[in-house]
């Protein structure tokens, strides 16, 4: 629904024979098959539109085996939105009831439990409050990196900027959107907007880059009307503000003093919302760290593997992508990789072999409070 039929057809025409972003496309670097390259996907869609090809299992799989991380469009001089093309294909697959079994299971879990694993939510370690600032954690932080909650609390206390949480937090809808379930995404984001209105904060700080991208770029188009005065920022922007106001005194803990640290740009920040410098400003405020950059960084940063919900739909493929990014971290001499999003951090740990230490930016800042 985020691409008009005219744009969809034009994008197919542009991509169906074009090899120019092959080198950038995340998934084809691992699978090395033309069907998983941008032009392969577009040519398949073209043939399906023309009735030359059926929605076979393999064609459906090629649409879901894609990272929707914005890299193809980032490299495209013509600026075609290849991601929305593929998301529109996923929508069609869902409409036709042809989604792969694991996709159906994830969507069902999201509806039932608010997370893709179908896990019971843990009890809140800190109660909901009424501070000006409300943090939206996202399911990865809630269920896979729960230490982020206490890290956030410590930062809030140290800066004199207390943070409240929602009493009950569920998925923002981003994952359903990525899987082609726009109705599910709409219901989820509207429920979240209602809950946030109820908490009446002045500011929402979003931990997960994917949630942030979704709330910023898609929630309004799915019918959400945010209060005019409400500020929605990524947690790295909030942290950068605290650092700039000298409200946080940061000192690297002994475990990472003198280590070489590389920052990984999540696609939801660097490409979709252009939040690039705030997390770097936070890292630069920590003395005793040696900061390096990836060969492909900032807008051109490669994916961690979790993009396009691959972490949930094709975990082995996601891990293979994550291992390549970790190798790129080692290639620039990094011993620690700091991610701007809990989902990337979780992905790296799933993919990793302990040769590179993985931290979320919020965890690092909390650790630097002494």
């Amino acid at each position, binding site marked *: 629904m985020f691409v008009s039929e005219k744009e969809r057809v034009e994008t197919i025409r542009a991509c169906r*024979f074009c*090899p120019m972003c092959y*080198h950038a496309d995340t998934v084809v670097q691992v699978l090395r098959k*033309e069907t998983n390259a941008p032009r392969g996907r577009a040519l398949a869609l073209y043939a399906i539109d023309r009735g030359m090809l059926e929605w076979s299992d393999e064609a459906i799989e090629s649409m879901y085996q894609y990272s929707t991380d914005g890299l193809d469009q980032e490299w495209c001089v013509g600026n075609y939105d290849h991601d929305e093309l593929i998301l529109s294909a996923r929508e069609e697959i869902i409409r036709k009831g042809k989604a792969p079994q694991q996709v159906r299971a994830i969507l069902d879990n999201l509806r039932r439990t608010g997370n893709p694993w179908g896990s019971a939510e843990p009890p809140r370690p800190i109660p909901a409050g009424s501070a000006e600032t409300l943090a939206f954690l996202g399911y990865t932080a809630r269920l896979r990196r729960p230490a982020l909650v206490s890290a956030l609390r410590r930062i809030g206390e140290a800066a004199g900027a207390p943070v409240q949480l929602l009493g009950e937090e569920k998925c923002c809808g981003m994952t359903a959107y990525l899987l082609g379930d726009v109705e599910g995404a709409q219901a989820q984001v509207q429920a979240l907007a209602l809950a946030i209105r109820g908490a009446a904060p002045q500011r929402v700080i979003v931990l997960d880059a994917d949630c942030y991208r979704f709330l910023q770029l898609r929630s309004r188009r799915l019918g959400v009307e945010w209060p005019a005065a409400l500020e929605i920022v990524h947690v790295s922007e909030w942290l950068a503000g605290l650092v700039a106001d000298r409200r946080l005194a940061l000192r690297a803990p002994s475990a990472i003093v003198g280590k070489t640290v590389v920052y990984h740009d999540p696609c939801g920040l660097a490409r979709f919302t252009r939040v690039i410098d705030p997390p770097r400003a936070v890292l630069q405020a920590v003395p005793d760290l040696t900061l390096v950059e990836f060969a492909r960084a900032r807008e051109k940063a490669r994916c961690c593997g979790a993009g396009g919900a691959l972490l949930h739909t094709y975990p082995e493929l996601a891990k293979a992508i994550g291992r390549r990014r970790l190798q790129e971290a080692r290639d620039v001499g990094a011993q620690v990789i700091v991610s701007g999003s809990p989902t990337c951090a979780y992905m790296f740990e799933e993919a990793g072999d302990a040769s590179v230490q993985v931290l979320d930016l919020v965890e690092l800042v909390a650790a630097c409070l002494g």
Partner: protein
Amino acid sequence: MTQSLLHEFIVTELIDIAGHEDVSVAEVDRLVYSTDFFWLPQMWLDRGLRPPAPDVVVHPESTQEVARILQVAATHRIPVIPCGGGTGSQGALLPLYGGIMLDMKKMDQILRIDEQSCTVTAQTGINGQHLEEALNARGLTLAHYPASQYGATLGGYLAARGSGTLSTKYGKAEDMVLALEVVLPSGQIIRTLPVPNHAVGPGLLQLFVGCEGTLGVLTEATMRLEPMPEVRRFQAYLFPRLAVGVEAGRKIMTKRLRPCVMRLYNERSTGRGWIRDVLKLQLEGSYMVVGVDGPKEQADLEERLIRDICLGEGGKPLGPEVGEHWWLHRYDFYYPPHARMLPKMYGTIESTTTFNNLLALHNEKKRVIEEGYAAWNANYFAHLSHWFPWGAMVYDQFQIERPPQDPVEAIQLHNTIWADAARASLRMGGVLNDHHGIGLKLGWLMKEQYGNAWPVMTAIKQALDPQNIMNPGKLGFGAPR
């Protein structure tokens, strides 16, 4: 190899060699591998028709797997089409007789970088841009910058005798290669000599460079490297006419100066196209961008000597900015919507010849296209790039805005234009092609190109591939036996 019991057994054998993950008979894969960057299969698909598809797509991960796959193909007499990035414009990838599409892109490892000798050895499925980035990280470069770099493979560079924008100084792919590992159609793995220059008989290496998969599968290549230049600078000049610019270019080359790039546009291309649309320059005459690179002192001197020649011939200096802009945006015109695309009909009909024939070749091809196809409002664009010590390449293109809708009529028009253009090149002392290859498109004209030498070529093919299973229907070698 149709849907049959035998087909299933052959697929079993291929899975036994490469594994389930690396063998596909899925309809979507077969469709995607039925086209490359050739206008003709793209037009065919655009009209709702399906070009010939491979029976099976295989993704080998080692030379040994390639060898065993070729043995299976030889045993069952099945065509094998080696596949790189699929960026070729001549139809070399089209599986005309079905068979095995052998996608080499999983063989993408850099095996050795010898910084002392300035060489790299890599598997041929490596992506051109990835190879270049890995070399750049070490202060080295392949110095091969084709427009296909983002999608093409090292194997494709070599199989089509490709060329990049800096070839005037750094040479074509065939000049850069030192040695190859090749799997012969029999499945035997061979290596060419360790160095390309020797006195140990005729050059086996160059037999496989440009073979477009018809004589075997290139699996490893050792390439010459260059240091990243200390400086790389560009200047632009405007000459009153193409002929004047050609004379300046000839003097630069025959005085043995070595510009890294020298692109001279004919009058029509100077007044329109990229120079008008991107640079926003309204120029009349013949525009040249010329670059120098290397150590600063060397570049300074070469730049000054080139300038002296250009001014001496009546060239007007336009300064460095337009040249720099060209370098930064040199690939932009290969992206949609700027690229030449359907529904237009178009083709790059480039050729190479010696200096004494250069202008005549350009003028004759211009006449053949503009006069011969006036009814179709055919446009002819040309620039001269890839200069050699003895001549240059005329990079010329035709374009028809509104070709026939009927696919058969469109093919016939397309092929007739190509034949006329190619024969004009031959008449004027040129060759069928400079750096895109022959493929399906020009295969049928190979006899005219080689004349009495053609039986030598077919005898070589017969000796190496008696069943003609390697990429049949390409390079003029005909059907499988």
